[in-house]
């Protein structure tokens, strides 16, 4: 792969289909679309500002001519995941949830009040294409949908919460016009914020030092508190706490340790099968592995609420557990949903791990790649080039 071909942007406008009605231009909450004027017909077209565009998909929803395609997620992959989930559980109801505020199936089961309901966790429920919800219902994948977006204030993608509410309102009104019971889609807003276990806090102040939102504070006699209003759930404080005193549901030290132990089994199986196992830590927005649990090719995945939550301890543990390589997929700084702090923190943590490992000549086994979710192939390319590097070693 020479890399000279530009990676495709996640939004494309079909100039043949586009009627230049400009509905998308007015709908875009980020003012990323403009209608270029000109004398000649060829000069009049809708153009997208790639910096401003957040791939929220509202334009796609509003376009009367289906001229816009938005690929934050691959529709077919999402549908396939949903189908598999419903088949596996034999359920007719499906939960579509924002990963960030619904880190575990258990937290959703508690909210829905039922166990065993299939859950499709996506980086942003607001960016799921509208068609996806339609097709879930029309293709008989599910009869009821529970959507769990983040609360408006908690949405880290800015506007993501609002967009999901807008889309779902639109969907409900459409269903009403079609005389379908609007109750088949329900909406529950959620958050996931960090909490301090005061019994374990040693008052070192690291959480306050590194928190990008000034939510964590250490006060005499040396106990940290986290302001629930300000916390945005990035998890950076977890990675810098020397005594594991902070928890963030789904990403606590205990959970990560448990998950690592389970993946170690997968690593052993890969080695027995003659494959070099690789562990990929990915920011929930940088990448969506398909299928989520890996495909038996020796690649294992561990989700992070933000690459800034990456703990050097877990990277080194992974190498001890038999992984031949550790790749971290983080968002590019300007795409970081946590005021750029997550990307910066991830870079610093990874450099410090590499420095420590270079003493043993193992720094080549660990790498970080910064990808743009707006260019969906970047993550895939980073993954395949890392795999080739590890396969080619020794």
């Amino acid at each position, binding site marked *: 792969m020479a890399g000279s071909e530009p990676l495709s942007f996640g939004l494309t406008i079909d100039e043949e289909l586009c009627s230049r009605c400009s509905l998308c231009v007015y709908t875009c909450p980020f003012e990323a679309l403009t209608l270029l004027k000109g004398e000649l017909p060829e000069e009049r077209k809708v153009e997208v500002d790639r910096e401003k565009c957040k791939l929220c998909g509202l334009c796609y929803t509003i376009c009367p001519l289906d001229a816009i395609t938005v690929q934050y997620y691959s529709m077919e992959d999402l549908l396939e995941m949903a189908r598999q989930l419903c088949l596996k559980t034999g359920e007719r109801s499906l939960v579509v949830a924002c990963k960030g505020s619904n880190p575990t199936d258990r937290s959703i089961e508690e909210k829905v009040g039922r166990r065993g309901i299939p859950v499709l966790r996506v980086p942003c429920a607001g960016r799921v294409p509208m068609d996806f919800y339609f097709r879930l219902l029309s293709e008989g994948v599910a009869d009821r949908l529970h959507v769990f977006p983040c609360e408006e204030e908690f949405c880290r993608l800015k506007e993501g919460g609002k967009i999901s509410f807008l889309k779902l309102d639109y969907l409900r009104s459409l269903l009403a016009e079609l005389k379908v019971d609007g109750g088949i889609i329900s909406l529950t807003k959620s958050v996931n914020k960090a909490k301090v276990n005061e019994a374990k806090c*040693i008052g*070192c102040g*690291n959480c306050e*030092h590194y928190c990008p939102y000034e939510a964590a504070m250490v006060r005499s006699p040396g106990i940290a508190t986290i302001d629930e209003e300000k916390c945005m759930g990035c998890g950076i404080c977890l990675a810098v*706490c*020397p*005594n*594991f005193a902070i928890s963030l549901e789904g990403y606590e030290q205990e959970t990560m340790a448990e998950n690592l132990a389970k993946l170690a089994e997968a690593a052993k199986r890969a080695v027995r099968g003659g494959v070099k196992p690789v562990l990929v830590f990915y920011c929930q927005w940088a990448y969506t592995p398909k299928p989520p649990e890996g495909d038996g090719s020796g690649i294992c995945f561990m989700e992070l609420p933000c690459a800034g939550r990456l*703990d*050097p*301890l877990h990277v*080194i*543990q992974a*190498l*001890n557990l038999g992984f031949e390589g550790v790749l971290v997929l983080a968002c590019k700084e300007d795409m970081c949903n946590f005021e750029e702090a997550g990307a910066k923190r991830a870079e*610093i943590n990874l450099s410090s791990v590499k420095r*420590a*490992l270079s*003493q*043993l*000549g*193992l720094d080549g086994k660990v790498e970080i790649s910064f990808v743009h979710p707006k260019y969906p192939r970047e993550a895939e390319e980073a993954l395949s080039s890392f795999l080739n590097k590890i396969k080619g070693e020794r």
Partner: protein
Amino acid sequence: MIVVKPKPIDEILGFLSKHKNVLVVGCDGCTTPPRGLREAQTQVNLLKLAAKLKGISLNLKASTIAKTCDKHIVYSTLASQLEGIDAILSLACGIGVQVLNEVFPQLPTYPGNDTIFNGMQEKEGGIFEERCKACGSCILGETGGICPIARCSKSLLNGPCGGCFEGKCEVTFNGEKHDCAWYLIYQRLKELGRLEDFKKLRPLKDWSLLVGPRSSMGV
């Protein structure tokens, strides 16, 4: 805070290779960056990797103490954790390593860090900087809160010298430029409206206060 730097792995393995069962003990006290339980576990994992690569057999466990500079706390925390242990690797500062050797003389305690200075961490750069030399005769009240003993390359009491260019000292450490302390003192005293303090001539410093081993009756 007491600022420490991890020792090279080879040096640590050099200490530990004569032993079989090692307890890696962190310290929740004051080191910067913190060297608590998480760092102890990280060190254990790093040493396991290293031992595997070098064909050394080593059993490692991680633990931590609230503060290693207190004999009582050290004893009450660790006494019950030493069954079968033949060496301790401490992630505390040099003080802690010595206390551990005193409290548990039957076991060698090795340092996992080099203790480098008393200082603080900048938020943006993540750089640690020296701030205090524990010289025993603090003049911060006269210099507007900026210490020339710690921050001036020559520890001048009556500065600046002629080597200040654009606010930076002509002496560089590892190619890094640092601020001229006396430039900072001037700016600060000006801000405080106390430039007449800048002109005061400070008499010879009692450097004997820095000669050790020092002791104190406390407050």
